[in-house]
């Protein structure tokens, strides 16, 4: 079985994002970029399935500008067999990303597509579900456990009410939640080895994907700030303050 993994580059989760004062975007110049944490988890899961002999090949996919190569090399250093770089200089919205993934799926015929449940920049939480719909295959989102046997995946999902388990026939799309696994660290020799692994480059336009980018972002604003309140000296003062506000 082949596994396709979404490997998106995002602003590192430790960066405190600043909105540009003219409202045209957020400051990304010189900001640290890293793999979307959910995609590291998706990749780790794919690698473990390969190590268990359930998968033979793990392919990481990135959609983005030319300088994505170094990021994809990290995915290869982590252990992916090869990478596909879909190039575009445009911002790509989830429906377009899903349509691009569908084209790759048709060509690569994976048994499983593993994506992150959300990318931590746009927090859209859409791409996996959209791909599953377009592909007319099952989806198992927010996975915290994945077991594969007999052409099926049994997936435990983190839902609001607790842990839901569903069974899906393969091929299918699974999206990772935080507790699926803990991704491995990249070791120096692996970075060297990754240099000789192949990265296929295809232009987004050449895939024949209709742009699904129909949302126009017209303005960026900083969120309303909560102001610092008061410090109380002990439990009794806290209870009195809350009572005074009518909260107790």
């Amino acid at each position, binding site marked *: 079985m082949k596994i396709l993994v979404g490997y998106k580059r995002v602003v590192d989760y430790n960066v405190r994002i600043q909105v540009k004062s003219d409202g045209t975007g957020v400051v990304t110049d010189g900001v640290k970029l890293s793999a979307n944490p959910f995609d590291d988890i998706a990749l780790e899961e794919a690698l473990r399935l390969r190590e268990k002999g359930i998968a033979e090949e793990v392919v990481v996919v990135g959609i983005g500008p030319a300088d994505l190569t170094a990021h994809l090399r990290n995915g290869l250093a982590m252990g992916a067999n090869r990478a596909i770089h879909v190039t575009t200089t445009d911002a790509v919205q989830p*429906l377009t990303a899903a349509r691009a993934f569908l084209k790759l799926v048709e060509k690569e015929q994976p048994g499983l597509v593993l994506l992150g449940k959300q990318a931590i920049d746009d927090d859209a939480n859409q791409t996996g579900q959209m791909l599953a719909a377009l592909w007319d295959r099952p989806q198992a989102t927010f996975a915290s456990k994945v077991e594969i046997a007999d052409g099926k995946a049994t997936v435990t999902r983190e839902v609001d009410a607790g842990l839901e388990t569903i069974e899906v026939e393969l091929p299918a799309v699974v999206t990772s939640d935080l507790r699926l696994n803990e991704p491995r660290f990249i070791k120096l020799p692996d970075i060297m080895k990754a240099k000789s692994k192949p990265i296929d480059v295809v232009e987004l336009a050449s895939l024949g994907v209709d742009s699904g980018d129909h949302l126009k972002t017209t303005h960026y604003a900083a969120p309303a700030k909560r102001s610092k309140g*008061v410090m109380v000296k002990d439990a009794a003062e806290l209870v009195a303050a*809350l009572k005074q506000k009518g909260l107790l």
Partner: protein
Amino acid sequence: MSKILVIAEHLDGKLNSSTARAVSAAVAVKPDAVDVLVLADNVATLAAEAAKIDGVSRVLTVERAENAHPLAAVLAPQIAKAAADYSHVFAPSTTFGKDVTPRVAALLGVAQVSDVMSVESAHTFKRPIYAGNAIVTVEAEPSHTVVATVRTASWPAASAGANSAPVEALALDVTLPSHTRYVGLQSGKSDRPDLQSASKVVSGGRGVGSKENFDIIFKLADKLGAAVGASRAAVDAGYVPSDLQVGQTGKIIAPELYMAIGISGAIQHLTGIKDAGTIVAINKDGEAPIFEIADFGLVGDLFKIIPELEQALG
């Protein structure tokens, strides 16, 4: 002319309050109609409940055995079919809505607006990105169906009782897939208030130290009639189940009172409580970032302070 279809969320034969919150957002569009779609194996009581929500024009039901559990692959084609008569489809941005709605959008070939915080016009909305550190105004294509999820913490639940909207059964001609099967739900259900709709929430973090120690949080919550929440660190460490996680990747909540105990206040956690009325922080580190946003801060050891609090509460 806008007509909005709101997808009802339910569990164990009861509507989730997220449904009435999504109705509030729909009403804010000032549409000609707000219809609620109930997909279930047994619709009668759910439909009756939905019909009472203020602002609802009609309740549409699809009763099928396949709709017993919320499987996105099964529900999405039915919703997409029902959406034909509507300008907008809204669902709550809960794990239910996040799972099924993008699948509906893709079937309709349209973009989705995730986590609507405010409605500016029928096609213009505000939504958070970067864990709520930026708020964007987005415009959906007016010639397309608007498919959106509603950030429940931004909207009060529409009140219920005065309305009695008509209920109609929908006959949808759609074949449903059999490739996805429900196995079970392991629910952390308790008699405590539900975390997503509670007016008071007491949350514990890594500072609580262990699963056993977390009892002190549960006890305080019970004393206050509050729901219990947790930081990711507390969930990862196994102190409490994952459905108690508050934050960017957990639940986004807006209680009147939120007490963060032994929680440092990482941005991913703060995203989940931005809309809380009053935030109380108890932390032994006076420099903890949580104090930057807390309305009331108390520096000290939680194991000493909580018993004192209980005493002061009487």
